[in-house]
């Protein structure tokens, strides 16, 4: 109903305005519509249907009067000219219209004012908003600046602190130096005072002495002189004595240096031994662990192990004297130690990781990896055990012989065989020589006996010859030429030189026999000379020419008391 009435009014207004050429903006129209809410009926909705028709004029009039009254225009009301007439009394109607127009104008003014006010307000609002944002920006900026300044202030504070501490240390330093200076100064002054006091005493004494003039001579009064502590007599001071002092001094210095050097060398050797041992142990620790997992490094260390084993023996002695080798030893130990340390660190980290894993994650996955690890480690352990076993075996072999079993045994056999053969050979030779020697000895003895007999015969011959000569010289008629001559003793005097040269034996025998030339005495043949005498005369015994020391075996045999015999080229000397 309201809506219809509103529409009606709006239509009506439009019509009015169209008539009176008052245009209204749609917005105003809407505003008007919105501002006023009339209790209007809803029945008529269309714009065309009017509020007032021919039928409801009095209702409309009363309604309008009501509305006017509600607007405060109770004084003006519309009347019909007469009841039942469709026409309106113009004056109240015009008044009412005029009032309404006034009202309308007023509300328009109000509206304008309000709009103006609103505009103003919105512009101030905008302005305020702008200034607000501007101020916010400014605020932010200033906050940032403030923090920046805070920061610089803090840094400056820090700097102040450090500078203060520097200053403090410098002050302390200065104070310390001052105290040092003070103590030095007091020490100097103390010394100076002491010296001055001594000088004063000296002066006093000097003056006293000059005054006194009773010089007490220094003297020693001993009952009797003592002997020296070591009982020796006093020596003159000679250059020999001084040089001997120098010698003694240098000797004592040298012996001290030697002693210290000896002890240092011993210490050095000990330490080197310890280092070598450490190195070996470290390598031993490192090598078996690595084969399964770390291939490259394992090879490296394996190589190193084998390398060092072979080099060790040769290096042992070298280490002692060669500085280069010493450095090598220390470097290799450092290397090994680093490796060992890294290995241990790795193990440690692994262990800690494993522990962390265990602690953090107690699910299936770590267990699996754990199982894998365990399996792997078991394999590794097995491998290591085998390896260690193999190494032990090798080591054992190495301890027994320097080569491995078969070849060593074979070689041993070879050697012993060779030795045996050689020994057999030599024994054979020795037997042969022994036999030879026996034979020769027999020959010699026979020859010597023969010689002895011959000598005897010769002597007899000579004696007889001499006798003959002597007898010939005398007037004895009985002359005998060529006294008893054996077949053997072809030793006529004329033949002597030949015989002398004929055989070695007689040549050798001449020295002993011809000494008795002057006295014609039948030389009693001495008993058959002993073998050694014989040999000596026959110059068989120790003459360095006949020595031969080619083989050890011969010397052994010689010590048995037999004379020497030699092989090879010297054999001819006996023939």
């Amino acid at each position, binding site marked *: 109903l309201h809506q219809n009435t509103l529409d009606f009014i709006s239509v009506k207004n439009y019509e009015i305005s169209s008539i009176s050429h008052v245009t209204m903006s749609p917005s105003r129209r809407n505003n008007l519509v919105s501002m006023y809410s009339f209790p209007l009926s809803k029945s008529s909705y269309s714009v065309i249907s009017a509020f007032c028709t021919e039928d409801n004029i009095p209702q409309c009039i009363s309604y309008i009067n009501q509305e006017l009254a509600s607007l405060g225009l109770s004084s003006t009301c519309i009347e019909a000219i007469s009841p039942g007439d469709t026409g309106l009394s113009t004056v109240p109607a015009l008044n009412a219209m005029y009032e309404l127009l006034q009202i309308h104008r007023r509300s328009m003014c109000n509206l304008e004012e309000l709009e103006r006010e609103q505009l103003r307000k919105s512009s101030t609002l905008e302005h305020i908003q702008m200034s607000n944002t501007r101020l916010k920006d400014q605020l932010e900026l200033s906050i940032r600046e403030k923090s920046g300044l805070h920061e610089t202030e803090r840094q400056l504070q820090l700097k102040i602190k450090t500078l203060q501490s520097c200053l403090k240390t410098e002050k302390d330093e200065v104070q310390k130096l001052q105290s040092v200076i003070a103590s*030095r100064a007091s020490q100097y002054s103390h010394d100076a005072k002491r010296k001055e006091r001594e000088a004063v005493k000296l002066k006093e*004494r000097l003056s006293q002495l000059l005054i006194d003039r009773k010089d007490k001579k220094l003297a020693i009064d001993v009952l009797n002189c003592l002997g020296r502590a070591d009982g020796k007599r006093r020596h003159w001071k000679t250059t020999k004595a001084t040089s001997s002092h120098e010698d003694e001094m240098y000797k004592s210095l040298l012996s001290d240096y030697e002693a210290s050097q000896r002890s240092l060398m011993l210490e050095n050797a000990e330490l080197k031994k310890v280092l070598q041992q450490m190195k070996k142990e470290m390598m031993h620790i490192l090598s078996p662990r690595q084969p399964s997992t770390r291939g490259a490094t394992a090879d490296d260390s394996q190589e190193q192990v084998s390398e060092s084993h072979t080099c060790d023996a040769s290096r042992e002695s070298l280490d002692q004297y060669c500085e280069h080798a010493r450095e090598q030893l220390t470097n290799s130990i450092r290397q090994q130690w680093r490796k060992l340390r890294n290995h241990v660190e790795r193990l440690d980290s692994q262990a800690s990781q494993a522990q962390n894993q265990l602690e953090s994650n107690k699910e299936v996955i770590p267990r699996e990896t754990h199982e894998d690890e365990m399996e792997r480690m078991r394999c590794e352990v097995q491998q290591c055990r085998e390896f260690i076993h193999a190494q032990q075996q090798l080591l054992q072999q190495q301890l027994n012989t320097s080569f491995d079993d078969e070849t060593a045994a074979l070689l041993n056999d070879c050697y012993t065989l060779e030795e045996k053969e050689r020994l057999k050979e030599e024994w054979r030779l020795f037997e042969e020589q022994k036999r030879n020697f026996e034979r020769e000895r027999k020959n010699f003895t026979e020859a010597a006996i023969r010689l002895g007999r011959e000598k005897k015969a010769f002597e007899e011959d000579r004696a007889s010859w001499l006798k003959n000569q002597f007898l010939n010289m005398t007037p004895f008629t009985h002359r005998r030429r060529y006294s008893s001559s054996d077949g053997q003793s072809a030793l006529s005097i004329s033949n002597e030189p030949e015989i002398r040269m004929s055989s070695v034996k007689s040549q050798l025998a001449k020295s002993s026999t011809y000494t008795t030339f002057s006295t014609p005495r039948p030389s009693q043949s001495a008993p058959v000379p002993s073998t050694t005498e014989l040999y000596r005369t026959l110059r068989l015994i120790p003459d360095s020419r006949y020595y031969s020391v080619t083989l050890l075996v011969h010397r052994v045999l010689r010590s048995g008391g037999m004379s020497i015999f030699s092989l090879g080229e010297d054999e001819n000397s006996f023939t």
Partner: protein
Amino acid sequence: MNFSEVFKQTNQLCKVSPDGKYLATCVQYRLVVRDVSTLQILQLYTCLDQVSHMEWSSDSLFILCAMYNRGLVQVWSLEQPDWHCKIDEGSIGLVSSRWSPDGRHILNTTEFHLRVTVWSLCTKAVSYIKYPKACQKGIDFSRDGRYMALAERRDCKDYVCVFVCDDWHLLRHFETETQDLAGLEWSPNGCVLAVWDSCLEYKVLLYSLDGRLLSTYSAYEWSLGVKSVSWSPSSQFLAIGSYDEKVRILNHITWKKITQFEHPAIIDNTKATVYKEAEKRPGVGSDEMPLHNITMGATLFNTQSKYEICPLPVQIPVVKPDPDRASPKIGISVLAFSSDSRYLATKNDNMATAVWVWDMQKMSLEAVLEQTSAVRCFQWDPLRPRLALCAGNTKLYLWSPGGCVSVQVPTEGGFQVQSLNWHCSGDSLILLGKEQLCLCYMDTDQEDK
């Protein structure tokens, strides 16, 4: 432990003969010689004046008595009491007198250190050594008695003269690089001479027997330097105690410092044992108190004491020295090696109540002994690693690696032990008071903590 009765002595002059059989003491102007075991008086000699210095000759046959006031030295013979010898320095005065190592020469230093006169008792001959230096330790004999080193000051420069004691022939004479030589000491093996400068400059020089400079050591500059120096009996180490409260150890191979021992006021972070002397006041009328203490009558002075092991950290009482005085009471003034070179005992002057024992094998602190009063004297047993010390009270203290013990010296009238000397056999100790002396015979192994 047995204590002998108390005898009189003056001037702390009481010495055992080098062979350990006799004990010589000076009482006023008399010289008394006793047998060490029985303490019976064997000989009695009378000198012309109060004796200032007394010394046995090396062969234990003669005793030298020097009277510095009169400038006289008298020598007495033990075998022949009638034998006499008197050396008169005349107007030149006498400042010090000593035997030569052969026991047949006497070296007298005249007043003002004008010269050193060498008197021969064999020939009555005299030799002079000019310009000897007046310093802390200007003369030292090598242990084998063959050489004597003497510090000389000539034309404001320091020199060292090495003499052969046999005939006083000057073997070497060389200048030292010191500003003001304070002392010299032979190493026990007689091959190295340590020379040190005065405390104004930290400098220790090591010279070989033939005069070559082996090495120089200087720990720092400007502050006060060396206070004391000691060789280890094996000649392996040289300990240098300085005013900065540290001991530096040099080794005989490179002559470089191998370690330094510090003496902090607060001992912490060490494996050493700290023994603190605690007095136990005997309660009057308690059953514990032994009877003889009461009969002594001087219970106030004879308080028993024992050692307690203190847990670390321990604070040692420090007395700050007067900074204006010369030779301040700070720094390591006493160094003593045990006979096996295993231990080193030190004393820091501003911690006068403490004795520090260092283990030379481990190069660390072994023990600290804190006494109730300032330690006067300590000395190692000549044979064992046992340290005896005294603190100017009536007690004798002994330390060994097994423990520490405090022994009351049982004398009437309170005998304050000022200094002590071991007998050369290590079996007894001679305790010297102000005017008294007492012998202490050791039992076998008496240690308890």
